[in-house]
């Protein structure tokens, strides 16, 4: 199965800004059943692109634009082939829990057991866990995680605009609503609490015509992966209550959203900006030709603005000493 993915991000600033610096994590990963066949990024204004692989193995592109500009547009285009899918057993065996030990886990697994920025335990999370009887996993890890996936899916309404990109999980927990990012963070926090190494995945989802997916077709998607010693990484999509399959295209993995935002940047100039994002995922047989491709969305990330913050500068200057 081949997919063609097109992802456009456009920042419009209230007044000309300069010295934009941007990092991009949009390149689909090439591993397991997923193979990257082509990838390109264009920016406007044009800029020299640099790349590196971060410590999670994600391809990161970065660039800077010195001269004044009122708009910054990033367009990426990828072709991905998804070959075979791992066939998962109905359940893992109950002894799987014993296998979470130093022989089967490496550093990265252990790192993914620690709390991270968006997966901090909290009173609201504890209450949720108690309410749903999730203190201890029920049955073998795979069964327990599937149950967790379904529980979260059922407990929350999908609604964009309630939470923001930097919202802690408490926000969604108290509202009982949220988006893919919130659900994934909540599930990660609980799974890690069970001792299951879990990571956040940012990527794209192919929505079949008439699909019942709750997530929007025109945005990036997020889910998580949990490590099972005898099965490897298994993807769970609590937004759509599925184990991930050939429709999930993985772009970047990390401890949580903070490690993998599609764009992260700073610039010098006034704070106000407007962000528009468009995403399309199509089987390549159907070439992408959208007339009205862009739409204005809520800001997804907030580039750090203007140097003119005397109070903050003052406090931060005082703090640095050993």
């Amino acid at each position, binding site marked *: 199965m081949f997919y063609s993915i097109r992802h456009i991000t456009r920042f419009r600033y209230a007044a000309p800004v300069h*010295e934009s*610096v941007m*990092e991009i994590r949009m390149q689909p990963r090439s591993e397991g059943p997923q193979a990257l066949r082509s990838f390109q990024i264009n920016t406007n204004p044009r800029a*020299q692109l*640099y790349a*590196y692989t*971060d*410590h999670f193995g994600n391809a990161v592109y*970065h660039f*800077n634009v*010195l001269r004044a500009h009122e708009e910054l547009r990033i367009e990426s285009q990828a072709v991905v082939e998804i070959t075979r899918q791992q066939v998962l057993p109905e359940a893992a065996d109950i002894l799987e829990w014993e296998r979470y030990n*130093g022989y089967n886990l490496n*550093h990265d697994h*252990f*790192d993914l*057991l*620690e*709390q991270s920025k968006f997966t901090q335990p909290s009173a609201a999370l504890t209450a949720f866990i108690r309410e749903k009887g999730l203190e201890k996993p029920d049955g073998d890890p795979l069964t327990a995680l599937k149950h967790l996936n379904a529980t979260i899916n059922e407990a929350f309404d999908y609604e964009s605009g309630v939470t923001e990109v930097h919202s802690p999980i408490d926000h969604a927990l108290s509202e009982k609503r949220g988006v893919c990012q919130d659900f994934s963070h909540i599930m990660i926090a609980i799974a890690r609490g069970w001792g299951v190494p879990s990571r956040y995945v940012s990527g794209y989802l192919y929505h079949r015509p008439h699909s019942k997916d709750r997530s929007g077709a025109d945005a990036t998607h997020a889910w998580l992966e949990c490590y099972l010693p005898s099965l490897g990484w298994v993807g769970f999509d609590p937004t759509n209550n599925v184990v991930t399959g050939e429709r999930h295209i993985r772009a970047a993995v990390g401890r949580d959203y903070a490690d993998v935002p599609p764009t*992260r*940047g*700073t610039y010098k100039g006034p704070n106000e900006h407007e962000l528009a994002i468009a995403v399309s995922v199509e089987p390549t047989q159907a070439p992408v030709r959208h007339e009205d491709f862009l739409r204005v969305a809520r800001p997804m990330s*907030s580039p*750090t603005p203007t*140097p003119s*913050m005397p109070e*903050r*500068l*003052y406090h*931060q*200057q*005082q*703090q*640095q*000493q*050993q």
Partner: protein
Amino acid sequence: MSAHPIADANPEAGQPPFSAYKLGAAYDEMFAADGSVRPQFAALAHRLTHLPPEELQRRQQACETSFLHQGITFTVYSDKQATERIIPTDLFPRIVTAKEWEKIEAGLTQRILALNLFLKDIYTDGRVLKDGIIPRSMIYGSKHYRREMRGLPVPHDAYVNVCGSDLIRCEDGKFAVLEDNLRVPSGVSYMLANRDVVRRAFPNLFRAQGVRPIDHYPRELLATLRALTPVREDVSIAILTPGVFNSAYFEHAFLARQMGVELVEGRDLLVNDNVVYARTTSGLKRIDVIYRRIDDDFIDPLIFREDSALGVSGLFNAYRAGNVVIANALGTGVADDKAVYAYVPRLIRYYLAEEPILENIETYLCREEKPLAHVLANLDKLVVKAVGESGGYGMLVGPHASKAEREAFAEKIKADPDNYIAQPTIQLSTAPTFVDGGVEPRHVDLRPFILHGEKTVIVPGALTRVALKRGSLVVNSSQGGGSKDTWVLSH
């Protein structure tokens, strides 16, 4: 605390300025327990007893004026009115013998080697974790662990280029390491400035004693920084300061002047195509090495805290690309964590297959069950410290705390045991200090500065911090401490 006047055994018996000097339980730098003057202090004691008190006071005053004039001040901005203050300097030097120094030097060299190997290990293979020498969660759970540094090569494998280790002298007279400062240690400018004024106050004494020079520190620091970059000609080095509101700002300015390098703030720098430049009136000037005096978190808003107004966007990517060197490397704080501290002797054995030359202070890790119980049961005898803090913050000094304070702190420990360690209260050694025209014992510690890059250099000197309040054990300048010149003798 048993205290007795030293007059009987002292050859300068009853003579001012030592008439009020009372020895306590702590080791005293100048007087042996029987009240006799230790040999290294003999000449100094003789000289000082022959100086009239007014003369001492005059010299002390001259020294303070000199500090003010050199701008060796820190600025208190409390009420929006900037007042320039000096960190009080005591003119009475602290003396370290050649033999003592030899051990300190060897011990610190051993320690910095082990700590750098440790940093390299946890940012690459993680052998030490696989071998179970140190718990994984202690590293991965540390707020100073920088995953971005994984697999990134650093010049000469030297992560820590400038280290300031705090040593104390225990009651038995042995030096032990209290903590390592591996991120942005400060105080070296006081070491240099103290020397400057003391040399002027007692020029003759100085020569006769055979005090080893320290004035080459800025040169050695410059050489250390220079050797970190492959650039050989016109190496451009800058000190990155948080700015004028930082209490160590004068030190940043002082070192920049002494080394003849640029003093920059984050807003002076920009990154283009992975190269770092400073914005000058004559155009953009490329920067090869940054001696940074701001914390990791703030150094690059693109990668770390995005609300940082002090950093430079894109700096880390320039660093990753090898176009600029940052000293100290990022992520060194994971190794000066107070919990990791407890493991340093084991790290020395693990990496160097040697016994530690300098001792550690006995440390109870609250993350472990038994030590935690011990700590909670003995709070009145222990000093408890938060793991990631420095500068005397987040700390409980058990014997000096009220019952209510101890109980409140116990709750904090129970809520987050991983975050605390405890140590027995240690009687820091005392050293003679001028107080109101006389000389009295005050508690001191010792912070030597270690430079590490292509090679390891320790300038024979240190910052001796002194708790100026009688009986106080807190020497931090942020908590009312002062400092002294430290003489390392050549024989």
